[in-house]
């Protein structure tokens, strides 16, 4: 559905996006993760046509994205912004109309989203008089009010209270279930892991890893927790394909490279004394992310 293909953008000496490529299919939730200044916002602005890329292109449904196609996209920018002195409902109706909805449809959709996001009692309030949390909800409604064919949300979870996070998760799942491709960036890797079908990890303007969380895991081996209380420090050092992550309460956490046979590890552990536990764990997205971006996290 959405294909970002070799998108490059340079600001002076900074290469904000360096041949960024990824695909998002119909109904897919795509999580875009990376540190501050990694290039997420720049990529999203290019998808929305707010910025022009220096090279590369964005395609949607097989065709290069033009103005008419962008009109049907929904966008939640990182720097939130609405008309401060406009009333909630008027604002949503206006934005829906700008996106091409006719007046009746715009009113219906605005009312519907106001109700859905729990803003009914604020529908005639000026946006500047709303609490920050409610302003976030209006901003989300603004991204959804025109029934977008693609959703691009930049840090949608930042600044949300836990209840609003649940609402947003529900809305995003619902949109995806309706076939809308959803791209969002987030620092909350546990949320991304829970929510996303696929993930793209970006660092220094480059996509350094991408795929389903399972695929990322397959590429990075597993975490092995060995409970060997009598083992001396450093027992696992030197084993082929093994990195020691840490020792805690007699439990040693090891990162095992993909394709490594775990039996020699068990044998080495048994050689130190009794082994009470020997468990493979899936690395969390946070761990995978650290592997992918290294220590320097830009």
């Amino acid at each position, binding site marked *: 559905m959405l294909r970002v293909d070799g998108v490059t953008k340079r600001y002076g000496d900074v290469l904000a996006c360096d041949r960024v490529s990824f695909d998002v299919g119909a109904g897919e939730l795509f999580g875009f993760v990376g540190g501050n200044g990694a290039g997420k916002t720049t990529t999203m602005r290019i998808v929305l*046509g*707010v910025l022009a890329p220096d090279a590369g292109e964005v395609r949607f449904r097989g065709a290069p994205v033009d103005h008419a196609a*962008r009109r049907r996209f929904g966008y939640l*920018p990182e720097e939130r*912004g*609405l*008309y401060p002195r406009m009333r909630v409902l008027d604002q949503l109706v206006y934005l829906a109309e*700008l996106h091409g909805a006719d007046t009746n449809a715009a009113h219906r959709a605005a009312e519907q989203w106001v109700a859905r996001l729990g803003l009914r009692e604020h529908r005639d309030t000026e946006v500047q008089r709303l609490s920050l949390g409610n302003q976030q909800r209006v901003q989300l409604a603004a991204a959804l009010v025109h029934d977008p064919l693609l959703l691009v949300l930049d840090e949608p979870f930042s600044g949300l209270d836990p209840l609003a996070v649940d609402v947003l998760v529900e809305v995003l799942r619902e949109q995806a279930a309706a076939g809308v491709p959803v791209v969002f960036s987030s620092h909350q890797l546990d949320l991304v892991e829970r929510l996303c079908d696929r993930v793209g990890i970006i660092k220094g303007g480059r996509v350094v890893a991408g795929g389903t969380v399972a695929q990322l895991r397959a590429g990075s081996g597993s975490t092995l927790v060995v409970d060997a209380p009598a083992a001396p420090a450093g027992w696992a050092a030197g084993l082929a394909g093994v990195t020691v992550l840490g020792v805690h309460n007699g439990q040693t956490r090891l990162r095992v490279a993909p394709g490594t046979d775990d039996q020699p590890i068990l044998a080495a552990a048994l050689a130190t004394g009794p082994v009470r536990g020997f468990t493979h764990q899936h690395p969390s997205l946070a761990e995978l992310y650290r592997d992918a971006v290294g220590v320097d996290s830009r």
Partner: protein
Amino acid sequence: MSPRHTVWLVARRELRTRLRAKSFLIGTAVSIAVLIGFVLMQSTLFGGERVTRVGLSGQAAAISGPLTEEARARGIDVVVSTVRDPAAGESAIADGDLDALVTGTPAALHVVVDESLDENLRRALNSLVQQEVLRAQLATVEDLDPDQVLATVGDATVDVRSLRAPDPTHDERLAMALVIVALLYLSLLLYGTMVAQGVVEEKSSRVVEILLATVRPWELLAGKVVGLGLVGLAQLTVVGGVGVVLAAVTDVLTIPGVALGTLLWGLLWYLLGYLFYATVFAAAGSLVSRQEETQSVLLPITSVLVLAFVMGFGLLSRLPNASATAVLSVLPPFAPILLPGRLALGTATAWEVVVAIVLMLTSVAGLTWLAGRIYAKAVLRTGPRLPLREALRKS
């Protein structure tokens, strides 16, 4: 969706927001009140004191000192100069560079004026002539007949010649000219500033990012300019219309036809002037990201408007026929304020109007292109004020 529809949606938002605001109603009411006061006071306001420039030619140069004194005693302020060539003096009068040209001998002064001689100056000159005649009579002391001397002296007055027939409606026309100059100045300043503030508001609130994800920069700019322009046009029409009707029914104006014409020309020049200034205001606004910085970035533009306004008042009341007035009133930055004033005075010629409109439309086209570029480039930039140089650079 067509660009025209998008522009209209943006314009409609501006219209609704502004027309609904209390400030619009209050602004309109205040303008009408000021205008009424202006119209009622017109006769007292424009007769005001001023410097009268008198050129002396030939033997008349001898009265330079006495005239200055006589005038000072009568409370009028004259500046006396010597004119070598009477013909040059007359053309200076026609151009409005001189108010009166005095020739002849001190005992038989001839005065040339454009339309009419200032009454105080007439009395001052008469008194000089009479003193001179009296002196001559007293010189022939042998057969002095007091009655005859008095009669002779009494008959001695300056001979006045006008280059043009005095216009009895001049004061009314001047009042209308100044009213339209003031109205146009206020409207252009107010609505131009509103365009800039609107641009800055969209930038500072960051709403521009979601807007530009669905509308093109030029559509957003055009919609804003059109919407606010229509609000301004509505306000000017209401204020001007009420002014004309009031002046006509209260008999303050004896020439309502001219007043209506002045209003219609004023509305046309409001539109032209607004198109000229609004995009420039918008481009300037797009350079900054915070409301506090708006004033300073607009200063060069508002200064031009203030200059046009000040010149309008000065030139139209003092030098309505000067060639400098004619030239300035045709130039684009000043035409929207000066030319309607001259049209009200009846001193603008048809070809001047044509030249002014052509110049105006040409510069509107050029400025719109330039301002649109600056705006498109600058509107998404946040942070410190964007230098104009950078905004103009090719991307």
